[in-house]
Structures are given as C-alpha cells and as structure tokens.
C-alpha cells in the first residue's frame, strides 16, 4: 500500500534551523538540457574513495558512455565519457574541491556527434543476482548524488548478519537554494520509483520510505502519484528543517533511532540513498547507461534565469552560468553545493563533477556578509540548534586555545559540520571553521605520533640488531677460542627477539599502509583549514587570527591515491 495519507509517527531531531529557502527562483522554469561545451574536463576523482585510473590515452577517440577510467580498489568508481570526442589531454587541472588543489583529469574535445557506445540493458532485474546487480551499478560509475559521492554499490550490500529493515530514499533536499532533486521528483518520478525497486531488491529491504520536505508539495504530489499502489512503499512528508537531509538526522526522523556515534545507518538496519541516485541506478540497470550527467541547480542573485540543467560531467561552470544569463561582474561568491555546507570556488572555469548538485552565483547584497566577528557571549544559541547535541561553545573555546584533547572530550568528531551553529551565532564567529581546523590538527598530530613511534621502533630494532651481531661476533670468537661448550646458546636468544621485532615491524608497515589514506586526508584537511584560517581568521581580532593559524606541516600536492577531494569528508550527506 503506497500511502500519501497514512499518518505515520515521525520523530524529531534535536535543533536545526530555518534559513531563508530561496528555492522558488530556480523552480519557475522547467529543467533543460545544458548546452554541449567544446571541452569536457573530467577529474579522475569525483567521488569518495580512491581516484579512478585512466584507461585511455591522449589522442584516443572515445564514444559517449565509454569507460575512460576504471575504479582503483573497492571504494572507488569508474568514469565514463559523457559524449563522443577525442581525448586531448590527461594532466593536472584545478578541480572543484575546498582545497583549491589540482588533480589528474582527462580532457575530451567534443565532436558534437554524441555517438553512444554499445550498451546493454538488464531485462529483468528481479531474476538477476543482487551481487551481479551491484556489479552493474559499480561499473556504471553510480555514486551518491546527494553531495557526498560515496560509491552506491557499497551501500547496496546488506551486511550478512543484519537484516535491512528500512530503505530510506532521501528527497529531503534541506539546503536552501538547491532544487535539483525537487525538479527530478516533479518531472521524472518514475525513474526514482523504478530505481527504488532495484535497490529494494538488492538489499532485500522490508519497507521503503521516500522522505520529502513539506516545502516541496509538487514533488510530493508527483512522487505519491507514481508510488500509488506499490506495496511496502511509503512517501513521508516531513516538516522542513535544516539539516534534515543529513543521513543520521533523517534516519532519526523516519525511524526514531539514533545511529550510533562512529557507526553507520546499516548498523541499525537502515540504508539511505538519495532520490537522484535511485534514478541513476534505474538508468544503469534498465537502460544500461552509465552515469555521465546529472541535474544541477544554477541559481543565485547574479543569475538572471535561475533553473535546473541536465549537465554532462566535465562541463565548465562558466558555460552553465552563461546559459542562465549570468551577470559576471555581480558575482561576489561562487558556491558549489548549498549555502550551508557547500564550498566556495575561486574560478568559474572549474568543471561540474558527480557531486555537483548546485551552483550559486551569489551577489554581495544577497549574502549580507561583512559582519564583524564579535566575542562569544555564551548565549547558547549554537547548542540549541546543534543537531548532534554537541556544545559548540565549549568546542570553540578548546579549538581556539588548541586544547585538542579537550575538544575531543567534547566529541569534536561527532560534528557533521552542518553549519547551524555558525548560522545562528549573533557574534558571527566562524565556528565550523574552528572545528575543521581542530579536526585537521588532530589528524596531523596522530600522524606525526605514528611516524615518531615508527622511527623509535626502527631505532630500537637497529640497536638490537647491532647488539645481536656483536653477540654473534663474540660467539664466533668464543667458538674459535673454545669451540665446544658455547656452541648455540649465545646467539639464539637475541635471534628470537629479532624475529619478534621483525614481525612487529611488518605489522607496523601494514598499519602504515592502512593509515596512508587517513594521513592524506589529515594533511589536506590541515592545509585547507590553514588557508581558510589565514584568509578568514584575519577578520576577527588580531589575536584570534593568530590563534587559529596552525603549525601543521605543509603539503601542496594531491596525488592519485589521495582519499579526499570529494565534497565532504564526513560520511554525512546533507542534501
């Protein structure tokens, strides 16, 4: 029984805010196709996990939908050519990432023919083995389209010991300005519903809930109509409140259960996917088409015709803005994502990637910025709105004083960086920035600790080896002098120790490799925090500025194995 009218118990999450919606502007016009640009820049890293590995070479001709980079490792996703054309360059280009760093990208010169590669649809997914389905989805390069870009097939793999009770389709889209999911739900609810069926099949989920905020009545109507008469599928209208689209908060609203700290929704039998991801999965299975484009909201007061565009990945943001009649000189800040969690871009030449849900070209007037940073008056507004029930104020004091252990005591790492605290702060303190800085500093610290531990152990091992060799030499000498009595005893004991040590070293090396991923993350986080702190921290009083400038090691490059250029380093996706 699909139900739009069945009243269901709904829970509330703590805190939250009601920022100005600004969604109407971009929903006046129906969505349209973005123009085909001459060049597409495709970063190999458009998702959470390892960057993909290029499998084409400069000069190759590629067809639309052809795989041009394959997944490298389990947590990774392949990349496909969004249209037909010629590969003209594979080198480092600026990518849309908070760090403003460059990363390896494939550049395709489009030929305008839009010629598809041969593709095959899966006729009856219900007869297909879920693991095979997952493989198709993986090969189609589908990642979470809500903003985080986590490879979707992983979240379609039910853990062996836990049964999936609820599959939640996230159509909340709680961030202001963003309307791409809204438009998709209005215009193409059937793809979403079909995709949902596939997900349910893959997960063997008992029930499925599509959650939509009540500021999207048309989307709700449209999805309800499409979901009519489907058993075990429910469309839930939830009261608008930011950050409801954050996975853990939405799980709480729909099921009343708290996802444990450090845990995942799947630990309590819930899986959460974005509605556009469902549509992408539908296309991957039913049509056999890989993920090569997405709906992007182009909005902001500097844009004359704000609307949603279906955009090929790699399209420069410039082209989209032009298509929506931008007044370039009006742009004060260019944001990718929503105003609460999105990040500011330094340039319009950056390409659209899989996680680009929204581009905001904001004017100075619109942002109402330039508010002076004042001292904290301990009003507690931040704690009232924190959806994780943290004490942002205490975290702020400790982060500011670089008391990192204290900050961790106050559960710094539970912070989802939703920005509610900064939003309501009457003193306009950039709270989230302080938390990002503290997190980065802690990661760096842990990394350094590990390094020094390793160095120490190496040193100890060396001492032991020297000692052992010395003993061995002495034993040899002793053997020469008095060959019979002291044959095996002396060298043996240290040898055992040495073997143990070697084993330990091996373990350590393994750990080191495991943590390499985290290390990169930490370094990038620290670098980002540092740059931001320098840029923005200057706004508060001078002493504040110095207090947030960390002494983290420098790192300027970002290599292939790096783990973090996707939009968010949290597993949270706030949509």
């Amino acid at each position, binding site marked *: 029984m699909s139900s739009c009218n069945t009243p269901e118990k709904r829970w509330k999450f703590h805190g939250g805010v009601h920022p100005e919606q600004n969604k109407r502007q971009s929903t006046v016009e129906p969505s349209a196709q973005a123009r085909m640009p001459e060049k597409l820049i495709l970063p190999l890293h458009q998702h959470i996990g390892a960057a993909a590995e290029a499998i084409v070479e400069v000069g190759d001709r590629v067809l639309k939908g052809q795989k041009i980079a394959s997944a490298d490792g389990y947590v990774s996703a392949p990349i496909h050519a969004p249209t037909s054309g010629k590969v003209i360059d594979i080198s480092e280009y600026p990518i849309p990432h908070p760090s403003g760093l460059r990363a390896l990208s494939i550049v395709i010169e489009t030929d305008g023919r839009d010629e598809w590669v041969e593709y095959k649809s899966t006729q009856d997914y219900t007869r297909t083995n879920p693991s095979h389905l997952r493989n198709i989805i993986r090969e189609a390069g589908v990642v979470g389209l809500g903003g985080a870009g986590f490879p979707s097939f992983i979240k379609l793999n039910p853990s062996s010991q836990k049964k999936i009770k609820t599959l939640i389709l996230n159509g909340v889209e709680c961030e202001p300005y963003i309307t791409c999911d809204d438009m998709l739900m209005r215009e193409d609810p059937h793809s979403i519903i079909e995709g949902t069926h596939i997900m349910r099949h893959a997960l063997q989920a008992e029930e499925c809930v599509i959650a939509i905020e009540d500021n999207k009545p048309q989307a709700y109507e449209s999805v309800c109509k499409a979901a009519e008469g489907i058993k075990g599928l429910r469309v839930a209208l939830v009261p608008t409140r930011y950050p409801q689209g954050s996975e853990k908060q939405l799980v709480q609203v729909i099921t009343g259960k708290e996802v444990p700290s450090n845990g995942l929704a799947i630990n309590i039998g819930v899986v959460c996917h974005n509605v556009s991801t469902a549509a992408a999965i539908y296309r991957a299975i039913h049509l056999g088409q890989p993920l090569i484009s997405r709906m992007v909201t182009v909005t902001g007061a500097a844009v004359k015709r704000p609307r949603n565009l279906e955009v090929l990945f790699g399209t420069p943001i410039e082209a989209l803005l032009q298509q929506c009649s931008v007044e370039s000189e009006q742009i004060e800040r260019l944001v990718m994502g929503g105003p609460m969690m999105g990040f500011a871009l330094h340039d319009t030449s950056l390409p659209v990637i899989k996680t680009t849900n929204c581009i905001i070209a904001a004017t100075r007037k619109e942002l109402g910025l330039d508010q002076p940073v004042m*001292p904290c008056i301990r009003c507690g507004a931040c704690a*009232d709105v924190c959806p994780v029930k943290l*004490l942002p104020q205490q975290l702020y004091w400790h982060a500011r004083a670089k008391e990192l252990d204290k900050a961790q005591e106050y559960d710094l790492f*539970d912070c989802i960086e939703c920005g509610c605290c900064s939003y309501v702060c*009457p003193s306009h303190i*950039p709270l*989230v920035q302080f938390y990002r800085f503290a997190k980065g500093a802690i990661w760096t610290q842990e990394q350094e600790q590990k390094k020094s531990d390793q160095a120490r152990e190496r040193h100890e091992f060396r001492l032991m080896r020297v000692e052992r060799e010395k003993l061995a030499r002495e034993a040899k000498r002793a053997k020469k002098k008095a060959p019979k009595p002291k044959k095996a005893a002396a060298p043996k004991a240290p040898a055992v120790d040495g073997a143990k040590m070697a084993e330990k070293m091996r373990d350590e090396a393994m750990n080191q490799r495991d943590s390499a991923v985290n290390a990169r993350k930490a370094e990038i986080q620290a670098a980002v925090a540092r740059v931001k702190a320098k840029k923005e921290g200057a706004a508060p009083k001078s002493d504040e500025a110095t207090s947030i400038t960390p002494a983290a090691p420098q790192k300027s490059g970002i290599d292939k194995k790096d783990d973090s250029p996707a939009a968010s380093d949290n597993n949270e996706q706030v949509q």
Partner: protein
Amino acid sequence: MPFNTPTSPHQLAPTSITRVMVMVMLALIPGVAAYVWFFDWGVVINICIALVTALTCEALILKLRQRPVMPSLSDGSAALTAILIALTLPPLSPWWLTVIGVAFAIIIAKQLYGGLGFNPFNPAMVGYVMLLISFPREMTSWIPPSALADNSLDFLETAMFILFHVLPDGVTFDALTEATPLDSLKTHLALGNTVNEVRAQLGLDEETSRVLSVIPIFGAIGGKGWEWVGGGFLLGGLWLIYKKVISWHIPVAMLGSLLVISSLFYLIDPEHYATPMFHLFSGAAMLGAFFIATDPVTAAASNRGKIIYGCGIGIFTYVIRTWGGYPDAVAFAVLLLNMCAPLIDHYFKSSVFGHKRD
C-alpha cells in the same frame, strides 16, 4: 577572476549582538515606564548619566587596550549594563553615585577581564553591590511612590537635586525619602512585629495613614508601586521569551524556586514570613529574573544547567532577604551563582547524538 573562498556556511541568520541588546533594551520599556510613573523622573536622569559614563569608560579602556572602539561600543552591551545599573539605584541618587557604580562595572567588572564575553560576574550587579557596600546610606534612601508622597519633585527639581544636590525651598531630603517595602518589612520584623502588624501599620488607607503619619507601602500583592514596576518587567521579559531572545529556563526556575520556598515558609508561619506574591513583586525579583540572571555571559549554558542556576538564584534571594543582612538579595544571589556557573556547566552536559551517556 578569482573569487574569495571562505568556508561554509555562506548564509547567516539575521542576528547580531547589537540586535540582541537592543531587543533587551526595548523589553525594559514597560518596566521603566511604570517606574517613571510611580517614582518620577529621577530614573530617567540616572539612565542618561549612566549611559554617558558607560560609553565613555568603555571607549577609554578599549583605547588603552588598543582594541577597535566602534565595534564594541556599538554592540550595545555597555549601554545595557548602564541602564540596568541605573534601574537598581534610588531615583534621587546623587550623580557621582551613578558614575562610580557604572565606571566600576565597566572598567573593573567587564573590561579588566577582557571585555564582552569574558567577564565571570555580571557587571551591573558587581557595580550595584560595590555601591551598596560602600555607600549604604545613599543606596537605601528611596523615595516612596509619588502617589503617596507628600512632596514630590518635578523633572527640573529632580535634575537639580541629582546634579547639584539642590532641593527646592522648604523641602528636606529626609522628607522625600523612605525605605523600600522590603527594607521596611525587614526592619519591622526584626523589631519583633508580625507581618500582619506591619501590614496593619503600614498598609492602611490614606485617611488613617495620614492621621498616623505613616506611609502605606503595601500594594495589592507587593510593595505599592513596586508591583507595577515588577509587572512591567514581567511583561517585557515574557516578550523576550516569545521573541526567543532569552530562554524560559532561568526566569521560570528563579521565580519558581522563589515562589516555592516563600510559600513554604509562609504556610509554616504566616506571621513572620511575607507572602510569596510580596516576594515576587517586590524589589528586583522580576528585573533580576528576566534581565539580570539571564545575562548569557555569566549564566550556565545548558538548559538543565540553567534550571539549576535559576533555582540557586531564587533560593539564595529568599535566604538572604529573610535571614541575611540586606533587604534585597537578587544581586548577591546572582553573583554567588555566577561563581557556580562553570561548575554547573561541567556537570550538566547533554548526551551527544549516537552516544549512550548517562
């Protein structure tokens, strides 16, 4: 063209410290209006003196500390402190009393600790208590509600007295002033009278009181005139809660605990303990509950903490009023609880999402 890339959020709520302070000042209007109605223009003149002093001191110290002056001056916090101190002073205080109190509050209690947000004690209450201890005579020379006074001064005469200590001919200062209801009650109870005797003596109708030449200080529920002032502050405070400028926790906890403890003793012995309503609507109870104790800088932060904090203030207010050396005690109670606020915050944390914490 490279754009600035500050971190998220890129949208801020339309709020600021100035806005908060201005809202609080607006909320004081009904109480101040009642004050002026019952106790004449003295309070307005005091507010003006206090404002000038506060802004001057703040600017001076900021300059000495080499901090930008305008942002701090325009945040409204110094102005609010000034107004609150002026409201606690007797309407006919000499100008220097106000100046000393406000200067002490701004310089010592606020700026020496690092300015807004860093002061452990409520600056207004520190200023008030300093004056009360140093100048007890000036601080307890209140005037009776104007409706009851034989002599009352107009605006110009009040200003003349406050600024130049000049009274119109034939009027003596003693004839103008009177102890507050809380003070009178305390004095009489200390003399061994019962509440009813005091009421009978001091709460008479005008005819009899003139004959006996005593002034009826008791109103319908609290002190005469005072109950209206308290009512004005209550109204303003409720508006602040409605506007979400303050949360309900501290006022409700403070007034609730004061109500409970005063009811308890009143029920045990109505002869020697004033009525709960008298406690709530006399002295600084209402002003304290909504405007003083709620100062976020010096209060407990978490909601549960705020309730403990408010209750503490209510109970200490009653205890000091009833058994202590001073007739009113909101200021002392607030300062005592200011000291406890960090401790309260330490013990009352909310449980973080996804953690099972007791």
